[in-house]
Structure formats: structure tokens, C-alpha cells
């Protein structure tokens, strides 16, 4: 298992609305949240956390464009230069018949490219096991985590009090 060499204080919440309010309150008090974990995408979490818009879709557009150019260019090269074949009485360069494959390849490149990029950015992949805070985060708990590596006991206790104040169901510390 990969280790991050961090000490993490986290609180578990029972509902996403409570979580959203908690994140808002904690950030308004000037505390830095390390990360938030939820079992499903929570609408509105990104702006509350102050995250910038993901650039993944820009990558997706570039991959798609790459797919379009590759497929169309490749078919053009094959059918006009490399191995010209007359099929169906059409000319060598018959654009309409290239469209379906170009379309499919665009979708394929955009989809596969975005998945690979997402995995790389998030440090996921086959054979990589990431540390986790609590297995219930993948089920029905919503988690706010602070990085408390090297922090004093008082600081940690202040953060814990803040988690409890914002209706955390339970709080824990874990080395990961």
C-alpha cells in the first residue's frame, strides 16, 4: 500500500446537506481543509470548497480532436495514397463514408483519453492501492479531513471541536 506520511484528522457526517453547511462554516472560519470524501458526487461541493473548474473536459476536447484528425487523416492516406481501392463505385477520397468511423474514433479517443488522464491525476490505476480513512466513506458517510501532520495537540483539538460543532457524527485521527 502506498503511504502518504500524513496524520489526518477527519470527521464523518451523515448527510450531504450537513456536510455542505459544515464545509462552508469551516472555511469561513479560515481553516484549510485537506480533502472531502463522499460516496457519490455531491452537487455544489466544488464551489463551496473553493475548487477551480476541472480542466478534464478541455483535455477531452483535445483528445476528441486528435481522434477526428487521426481517423480522417488515416483513412484519407490509406484510400488515396497507400492502398487505393474503389468500393461501391465511389472515388478514392469519399468523405461521407469516412464520417462514421471518424465519429466513432473521436468518441473513443475522448472517452479513453479522459479516463486515463483522470486515473493519472488521481493516482489511481491497476496495482496501486491507496490508503483510506474509513471504509464507510464508500457507503453512507461523508468525510471532511484535515492534514494535522506536525500540528500541536491544541491545534488538533480545536479542529476536532470545530468538526463536532458542525454536527460531525464522529471524529478520528489516523496515520496514512
Amino acid at each position, binding site marked *: 500500500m502506498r503511504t502518504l506520511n500524513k496524520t489526518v484528522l477527519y470527521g464523518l457526517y451523515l448527510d450531504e446537506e450537513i456536510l455542505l453547511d459544515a464545509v462552508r462554516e469551516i472555511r469561513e472560519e479560515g481553516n484549510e481543509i485537506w480533502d472531502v470524501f463522499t460516496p457519490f458526487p455531491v452537487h455544489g461541493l466544488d464551489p463551496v470548497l473553493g475548487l477551480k473548474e476541472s480542466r478534464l*473536459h478541455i483535455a477531452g476536447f483535445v483528445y476528441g480532436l486528435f481522434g477526428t484528425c487521426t481517423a480522417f487523416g488515416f483513412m484519407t492516406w490509406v484510400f488515396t495514397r497507400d492502398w487505393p481501392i474503389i468500393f461501391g463505385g465511389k*472515388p478514392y477520397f469519399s468523405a461521407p463514408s469516412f464520417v462514421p468511423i471518424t465519429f466513432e474514433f473521436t468518441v473513443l479517443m475522448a472517452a479513453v483519453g479522459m479516463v486515463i488522464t483522470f486515473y493519472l491525476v488521481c493516482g489511481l490505476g491497476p496495482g496501486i492501492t491507496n490508503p483510506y480513512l474509513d471504509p464507510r466513506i464508500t457507503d453512507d458517510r461523508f468525510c471532511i479531513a484535515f492534514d494535522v501532520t506536525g500540528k500541536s495537540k491544541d491545534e488538533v483539538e480545536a479542529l476536532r471541536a470545530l468538526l463536532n460543532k458542525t454536527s460531525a457524527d464522529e471524529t478520528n485521527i489516523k496515520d496514512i
Partner: protein
Amino acid sequence: MGAHHHNQPIQDNPKFVFDNKLKVFTIALIALGIISLALTYFTGSEHAHIRFWTNLLQNAVFFTGIAFASLFFVATHTVAWGGWQTIFKRIPEAMMMFMPVGIILLGLVYAGVLTDATGTDFLYLWSDEEALKNDKLVIHKSAFLNPMNYLLTLVVIALWTGFAYMIRRLSTQQDADRKLRVVNYEKIHMWSAIFLPIAGFSSAFAIWQWVMSVDPHWYSTLFAWYATVSVWVSAICLMYLLILFLKTRGHLQYFTKEHTHDLGKYVFGFSVFWTYLWFSQFMLIWYANNGEETQYYFLRFEQFQGVFYLNILINFIIPFLTLMMNSAKRATGTLGFMAGLVLFGHWLDYYQMIKPGVWYNWEHAQHEKHEGHDKHDGKHEEKKEEHKEHSDVYRLNENNSPKAVLTDYQGDKHGVKDHTNVSPDSAHSHIDSTAHTHTDSLSHDNHDHGATGHEGHDHGDGHDHGKEAHDAHKDHGHAFVMGIHFPGLLELGTMLGFLGLFLFVTFTFLSKASLMPKNDPYIDESKHHHVWYDL
């Protein structure tokens, strides 16, 4: 969250008043339309008034189609237990009430066909007595394409209107009586579920006759889908424009960026879907390269390139590239502009579905007249006989199947260019070439305009032959006719007139009921609808 998080009370005025200013505006538009239609009629005798008939038909079908799509919108969203559209559902509910007017408008076309008014023979070749005697395909299809079935399409609109009245009444009744909240919703749900399959089949039945039958020698199994999606996108665009207008007047204040986003997704998604159907129809015809099918695109490539390519630009390329981004779908200005553009684009789509076919019918009739004039000696008779012989040979070879009849017809039709180049005694080669004439000239044309490549390279002399045909063709000449080959000012005036009529009816019905369906079970879900958050 989102817009409502700050707990400010929302000032929403649910009572729309169709005031005099608006009435004058819409009536002025209607007057403009009537003047435009009258002018197209009185200036159109040179082309047998086909400009008038096509404009009437195009706009009647387009706006009736939008009304149909509005009813379809209400029905699909109810059947799918949709909630987000509830705050603005009075708008499609008012738009669909244009359908009875559609019966009158298409009734005018029907009356023209029945009374054999000048030009209707070219509008619908199946109503032409000459064609019914000589045109094998028109005879073949007369079991379906006839005035009786055309009358049935008006009955179809009446049936839709019945559903529209029923659903609208059940919905507005809820406003007065909270006890009807669930009872009426369930009734609307039931009537919607009954309407949808009927709508699917009957809209195809109607659109085949209204629009596809202007090209009675051609058919496409994708046509009904393609034409219906066209009015569906248009209905959503018009709905959004009406919402924007009503918002400026202090109504629909619960309509937020979240609803805008969903309508934006519709405009984007269905523009792509429309293109998918458009291209599927095109590619299958292009690939198979059968004369009876390619004639449809042949005509558009040869004489209607402007409308043809503008159609793709406005309805696919621009909305696709613009609305791809999330932020564009949520931006009022961008989506408003795109809605206006796409609405016009699909009006143009109906223009290019109707005008070329009718123009072709007219032009072909002129050719025949011309030919008949030229050859009043024995030669003509001889040629006719020869023709007959060819068809017999061809049909014998093909076991007299309907397809052989079709091919034979094409030979006749475009043979005009061909006959001039083939000597009468080379009968056999003539038969061979008739089957290809069409595609050859298509290929040549493509070559000129760089559209889709050039077919016909496999038949040895195909290319040269096409060139000859094309040259011969050029001698006949295709003069550009405003209002036929491209929409002119009178077309735009007519469109605005019909739009004015549509708005008049919509505003009338909007003013009859509260804009806020306050007892709809989904109203709260719709008021607090959110799918995304602004950063």
C-alpha cells in the same frame, strides 16, 4: 442553493396580460404575413404560383409542427415523471393551442388541391390528372397519396387538438381546486401515455403527405424522424425565447440558470440528433447510389446549394461548437441567440424540404411542354414508341418488380439530357446508360462544388458521359429564381406573419390561465431545481 440561497422573497407575477401593445405588434406581424403572401401570389403567375403554395405549405406545416412538438413536450415530460419543467409548462400548454389554426391553414392547402387551383398540381404531383394518367409511380402510390388521405391528416391534427384541449383543461383546473392536485395529474399522465404512441405513428402519416409527397418519386424511411426532430428543436427554441420575453415582464422569476441549462442541453443534444438523422438519410442514399433515391440530393446539389449548406451550418456546426461548453448552455445571451438562430435554421430546413421538389415538378412540366412543342412530327411518335420498348425490355429483365418501374421512370425523367446524345439505333446502350445518367451528372456536379466526391468512376465511360450530360444540361440553363432557390424578403415576411399568428394564439392562451401552476404536484421540485452550481 444557487440563486435562492439568500432567502430573498421572489417577486413573481403569475398573471400574464395580453395587452394592447402586444396585440398591435402581433397583428402587425400577421398583416405583414398576409401582404407577403398576397404579393407572392400576385407576382407568381410566371411560375404558376408555386412560390405562394410552397410558402403557405412550409409555414403551415412548420408552425403546426411546433404546436405538435409542444404537446409532445408536455406529454413526454409528464409520462417520464419530469418535474423541472413545471414552472414554465404553461408555455408549451399555450403553444400547442395553435393546432386548430393549423387545421385551417393546411385546410387552405387542401382546398387548393381539391379545387385544382393553379400551382397545386406542381405542389402535389399526385393531384395532377396528367401525372395520374402517365406517371407510373404516381399511379403506383395513388392508393396512399390521394385527397382522401390528405383530408385524414387534418383529422389527425383534430385528434391531437383533442388531446391538447384535454391535457390543458386538466392542468388549468388544478389552479382553482387543490383537491385536483393528484387526481388531475394522474389523468394528464394517462392521456399523455395514450397520446405518445398515437403521436409517433400519426405524425409520420401526416408528414409523409404534407412534405415528403412533394417529391412523390422519392421516399426515405428516415424522413418522418428527421422532420419531426426538426420541429421538436424549433419548439424548444421558441419556448426558450418566450421564457426570456416573459422574464423581462416580471413573470417566471423562478426560472433560473438551472432550467436554462436543461433547455440548453436539449437544444444542443437534439441539434446533434437532427444531424445524425440528416446524415444517416444522406449517407445511405449516397452509398446505395440508386437513381430514384439520389434524385433528391441531386436536385439540391445542383440548384439549391446555398440553402443546402446553410442548413448544415446553422443547424449543426454553429450550435454544436457554441453550445458544447457548459457555460454557453447556461448563459442567457448565448442560448437566446442560438435559440433564435436554430429556430430560423429549422424553418430553413423545411424550406429546403419543400421548395426543390415543387420547383422540380414545375421545371419538368415545362420541359415536357417544350419537347411536345418541338416535335410535332412523326419523329416524336417514333421516339415515344422506342421509349415504350425500352421500358418493356427493362421490366422484363427485372420481373416487372416495382423497383424496375422506378428505374424506368428515372430513365424517362432525366433522359431529357441523355436522348440528345444517344443515336436512336443504339437502343441497347441507351438502356444501360439511362440507369446511370442520373448519378453521372450528380458526380459531375459534386466535382464542381466539392461536396462529397464524385461517383460513377467504375463505369468506364461514366465520367465523359456525365460531362456531356452536364453540358447539355447547361444549355437548358437554371436561372436563379428568388423565393425558390433562396428565401427572399417575401419568404421572411411570410415567416414573420405566421410567427405573429402563432404568438397571437400563444399569448391569448397564456393570458387565460395563471403562469404558475401552483397546485401541480411537481411545482416545488421545479422551483428548487438545480443541476449545477456557478463557481
